[in-house]
């Protein structure tokens, strides 16, 4: 039976309670009659033989690009860059797509007699990956062949010796990317496209860029003008990246882009109830829910976090395409929409969402309060095309404990951002003007980013900027079950129960509001008409 498309449920009196994530926990909440719940499409059928599909893509490129074997020759300089730990979510079961693709690329390079090969993790301002994370992403075979010889490196956006300035775009934006990548005869980029925002020119223009280059599009003005950044054609973030990407191409950097898409099979069998429609839960799903909910309620957050971050998603590859960046990305975006798109009729007064334990920036880490805001307002709010799911002046209700917990290794600057910046302002424009530079140039944060496993000092600002469009658009944000003091620090309202939150929301949007709940993960993209 072919997978069912996405679905918008109209809640009535016989609709069972709806699942809401609450970080490392979840609950079932009864939504008012007349509400809507948006469910993601069911996982698409994966490719039967992914390795054959990869080889076919490499030898049959799309757009103005030659087959990969024709681009490889002895004595050339080949660089393979790939997406970092932020993709996919949750990390997928072995073998990771990056491993499968890179092994095929290396096979072809070996056949062509290419000696000078380097691998680069395209992490922009994200934290450096650990050895186990790298081994998981690219496989032991590749890791052992390259890492011990220093041929597997992690991009450093703060190393002046490892960066090349390629010029300015027609709008005066600096284009500065990884030197090795820029000077290679061929740059192969291996991407995983989890959401429509990923991939395209953003892969190189952001993933291998310097802070100097990134600040041209990672700023409040760009984010507010990206409606949404999941919709490439209405996203200023993408426009800036496309300008930069074209300049990179004009500078003579030969990019062979390999993009892949995944199905949304997000949770293994024991947690599969999390991605099912509640009224279709079988006895086993109910037992799993009851057992896991009861156990997690009695488990310390640290332990629960450990359990969830050990989950590996049974994602499978649904497509792979290679060749010229823009031609490749056009196909990739269509395939992402085929998996995630759901047509939704009209906007809503109140949008509810349960926030899970994971975002792109806290894999094997803590979803701290800034990342909570970013996940809800930056990511889930922006999962739309056309119009936002919630009307202008509407209310966003999220469920999450939102405790002031931070991972000091991964997110050191977030702690200071929370204590020093958010106590002063929650306005992205104000904070960018008053505080960003100090954090971005702080030598301690820079040191931790370059040598440890810390996100760049400016990263919490970027996370807050991602919320800028939502903050501009919404009348109020309410977090249910969140630590009240922390929620107020974020500039949001706190409620104990969903019922209380709905009462509070009525004060903003009127006495008989419409309500829509976005049932994610799995990730879905609302095509709002």
């Amino acid at each position, binding site marked *: 039976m072919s997978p069912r498309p996405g679905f918008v*449920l109209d*809640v009535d009196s016989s*609709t*069972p309670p709806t699942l809401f994530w609450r970080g490392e926990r979840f609950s*079932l909440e009864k939504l008012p009659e007349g509400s809507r719940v948006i469910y993601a499409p069911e996982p698409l059928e994966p490719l039967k033989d992914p390795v054959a599909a990869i080889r076919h893509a490499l030898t049959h490129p799309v757009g103005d690009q030659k087959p990969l074997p024709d681009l490889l020759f002895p004595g050339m300089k080949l660089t393979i860059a790939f997406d970092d730990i932020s993709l996919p979510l949750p990390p997928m079961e072995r073998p990771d797509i990056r491993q499968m693709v890179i092994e095929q690329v290396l096979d072809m390079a070996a056949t062509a007699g290419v000696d000078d090969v380097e691998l680069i993790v395209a992490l922009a301002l994200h934290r450096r990956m650990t050895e186990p994370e790298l081994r998981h992403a690219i496989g032991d075979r590749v890791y052992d062949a390259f890492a011990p010889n220093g041929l597997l490196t992690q991009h450093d956006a703060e190393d002046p010796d490892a960066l090349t300035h390629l010029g300015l775009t027609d709008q005066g934006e600096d284009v500065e990317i990884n030197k090795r990548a820029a000077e290679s005869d061929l740059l192969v980029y291996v991407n995983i496209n989890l959401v429509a925002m990923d991939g395209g020119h953003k892969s190189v223009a952001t993933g291998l860029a310097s802070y100097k280059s990134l600040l041209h599009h990672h700023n409040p003005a760009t984010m507010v003008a990206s409606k949404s950044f999941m919709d490439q054609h209405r996203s200023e973030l993408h426009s800036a990246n496309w300008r930069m990407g074209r300049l990179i191409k004009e500078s003579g950097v030969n990019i062979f882009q390999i993009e892949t898409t995944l199905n949304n099979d997000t949770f293994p069998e024991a947690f599969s109830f999390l991605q099912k429609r*509640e*009224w279709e*839960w079988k006895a086993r799903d*109910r037992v799993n829910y*009851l057992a896991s909910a009861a156990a997690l309620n009695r488990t310390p957050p640290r332990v629960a976090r450990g359990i969830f971050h050990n989950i590996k998603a049974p994602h499978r590859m649904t497509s792979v395409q290679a060749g010229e960046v823009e031609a490749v990305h056009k196909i990739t975006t269509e395939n992402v929409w085929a998996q995630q798109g759901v047509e939704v009729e009209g906007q809503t007064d109140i949008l509810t969402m349960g926030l899970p334990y994971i975002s792109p920036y806290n894999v094997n880490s803590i979803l701290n309060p800034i990342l909570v805001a970013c996940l809800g307002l930056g990511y889930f709010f922006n999962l739309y095309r056309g119009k936002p799911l919630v009307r202008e002046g509407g209310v966003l209700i999220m469920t999450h404990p939102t405790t002031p917990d931070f991972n000091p290794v991964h997110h050191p600057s977030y702690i200071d951002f929370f204590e020093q910046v958010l106590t002063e302002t929650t306005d992205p424009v104000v904070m960018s003007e008053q505080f960003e530079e100090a954090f971005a140039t702080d030598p301690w944060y820079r040191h931790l980013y370059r040598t440890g496993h810390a996100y760049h000092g400016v990263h919490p600002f970027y996370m807050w900027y991602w919320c800028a469009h939502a903050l501009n658009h919404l009348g109020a944000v309410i977090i249910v079950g969140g630590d009240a003091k922390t929620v107020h620090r974020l500039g949001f309202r706190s409620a104990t129960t969903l019922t209380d939150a709905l009462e509070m929301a009525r004060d903003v949007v009127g006495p008989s509001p419409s309500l829509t709940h976005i049932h994610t993960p799995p990730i879905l993209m609302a095509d709002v008409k």
Partner: protein
Amino acid sequence: MSPTKGTANSLRSRRAVREESALGFGDGPGPLERFSPRRLTTWVGRQRFPLAAPTWPGTVVRPAPKHTLGVDYDTAWSRRYPVRLARAVVLDNITRPLARVVASPEIRGEDALVGLEAPVIFAANHASHLDTPLLLSCLPNRFRHRTIVAAAADYFFDRRWKAIAWSFFLAAIPIERAKVNRRSAAVAAELLEDEWNLVIFPEGGRSPDGWAQPFRGGAAYLAVRTGRPVVPVHLANTRHILPKGRTALRPTHTTVTFGQPLWPGEGEDSRKFSLRIEAAVAVLANEETTDWWTARKAAADGTTPSLQGPDVATWRRSWALEPHPGDRVETTGPNEDGLKPDSRRPTWPKRPS
């Protein structure tokens, strides 16, 4: 103030109830009763989702339930080797002796099966529930343990226990009899190609009045589709044993007559072939009441009596049937309606004095 008599009594009775309850004798549920299946069922029934099954939103169309019974019942398990072995043991040691006792079959025309290569389709008339075990028990060994039976999906496969029982005892497969069903036809054809013989009753069900019903095209269709022969079989007198509407066994003598195998002719469609099969069974029926030579001559002349009996009023059709051998009979007068010349009718049973 001293307590009134009534108060004292009520206090006493309350204490007694408490004590009895503690011992498990009182009106309240005792420890055993508290965890009785009935109380547990009631408790579970009162629970809500997720303890209880979820309710279905009224705004969502329910998908059609998955059918696992009737024509959709999967009988593959009944053809696995251990099950076949167990069935062979039951068929040879229980079913066959029982059929011999109840039906005392006389087997004729067995030589028609000599040298005939399996798989074949056995097409017989159908008047009794005993027809299938009787026919199976009369088949030569080389056919008997590799034969499946086409059984009405709506009757033999409507309950799980029935589906299991008939699949096991008779190697039955469900066949839709009310309409043509691709799935059941495909399963039967697949099994024939897998060298399983098939017993099928082309009438689609037991005779309602003792006379045969028109043959349907199933047997012919399968023969045409698979290119396998049909062996016509006539079962005589089985209508006395377990006919429609009767549940008690009534032992009698029966005759099982095998005819010469019929092959579908080149370009012959299943409708024409089905008429040929019906005619062949009618000849065997005639042979049972006359003799082989007379039946052959009648067949050649086209005067073989129809299996379906005379086209007259119901009571007269019944009147024209052969009585049970044990019934008292009187010879009727001359035949005016073309009924069998030796038709006899039973006398009315005498009232007990």
